[in-house]
């Protein structure tokens, strides 16, 4: 079947099998490898992307269901001249990553947290990221990064149009 999906600002049409998962579509069909697959069971959040403004776990969404949707992955965050999104910049400045495996999903989920709540407390950040696991357990710096990003204003909770 054919799907037309806007991925990181580019509309594209692809022939997909109905059972293709959005995570595999992004990685294999679109060649966007930032979105990691950690657990495949909706538990770890590594595959989190933003679909029509909402954070979702792309290992549990069919590409077929995303027909007509707008999807943003980590690759779609930086500006045209490589300028980092406020959330990316904060993860860098606060050292919100260790091995980096969970990071793309954490960054996308964190943008989702700020889109709901532009200035969360530590506790609210932790609750907002409850669906994302970091095996390096670097949670303190991740929480700090999200709160730092919040200081950048509303753009930290938005993905580029």
């Amino acid at each position: 079947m054919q799907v037309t999906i806007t991925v990181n600002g580019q509309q594209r049409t692809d022939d997909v099998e109905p059972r293709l998962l959005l995570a595999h579509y992004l990685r294999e069909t679109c060649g966007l490898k930032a979105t990691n697959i950690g657990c495949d069971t909706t538990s770890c959040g590594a595959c989190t992307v933003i679909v029509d403004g909402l954070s979702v776990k792309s290992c549990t969404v069919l590409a077929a269901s995303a027909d007509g949707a707008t999807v943003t992955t980590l690759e779609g965050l930086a500006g045209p001249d490589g300028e980092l999104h406020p959330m990316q910049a904060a993860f860098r400045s606060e050292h919100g990553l260790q091995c980096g495996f969970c990071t793309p999903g954490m960054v996308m989920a964190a943008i989702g947290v700020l889109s709901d709540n532009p200035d969360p407390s530590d506790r609210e950040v932790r609750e907002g990221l409850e669906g994302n696991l970091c095996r390096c357990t670097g949670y303190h710096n991740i929480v700090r990064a999200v709160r730092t990003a919040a200081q950048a204003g509303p753009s930290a909770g938005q993905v580029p149009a």
Partner: protein
Amino acid sequence: MIPAPFEYVRAGSVDEAIAALTEHGDDAKLLAGGHSLLPLMKLRLAVPAVLVDISRIPEFSYVRVDGDEVAIGAGTRHFELERSDVARAEVPLLPHVASRVGDPQVRHKGTLGGTVAHSDPASDLPTALLALDGSVVVQGPGGRRSIPVTEFWLGFFETALEPDELVVELRVPRTGTAGWGYEKFTRRENDWPIVAAAAVQGRVALANMAGSVVRATATEEALANGASIEEAAALADQGLEPSSDMHADAEYRRHLARLLTRRALETASRG
């Protein structure tokens, strides 16, 4: 993990969904948020030949007051219920319980109709709907009918739905300012309840204490006969046969049912 192949049909309306179910019968399954069904399909525990996607049906997602009741569209996603001002004012138990389901990403996809139709005894929102004594509105080729929640969940993954029917609406009485309580015991914040108790207006429902969500009838009777909260809650597990699994054995579940029922009733009594 990748599901087995299937034919994909997108339903643009409730009638189209019913037509697809009628045509394909037992081979077809509805796909709403997919957050219970797709995991099962990846494990090949569900192998539908045809998947009927109802996640884009317009007019399937709403929360509104209708007479003495609040009516909620089956396609309403958990986060929409959580944030609904109507739900917060008219039946505050429901948005609170919606906020306790899974994590934000799960709540962005999962729907009320999906969790109701799935009939997992460990699910949060069905427990709340059961305590609220609401009803499930279903629609099939012959039209709509309304099933009281007490007759809807028949067992593990088993409901009173016919194969060609879908859940279209959930209805609950408006409880307004009446006190309510919800107690959910988990090991990790975003997990399904090991046991949960919902209390509102003298009714108590429990998650994960039987093959489906159930009412704590002995507790309710005791309360109606003037027992104290402590006395009534001590009966919460009466007549129930909870199972043992890696999270908790049956005896521990009984203990949790009594404890969580007491806490939920205490919170409800404080209004």
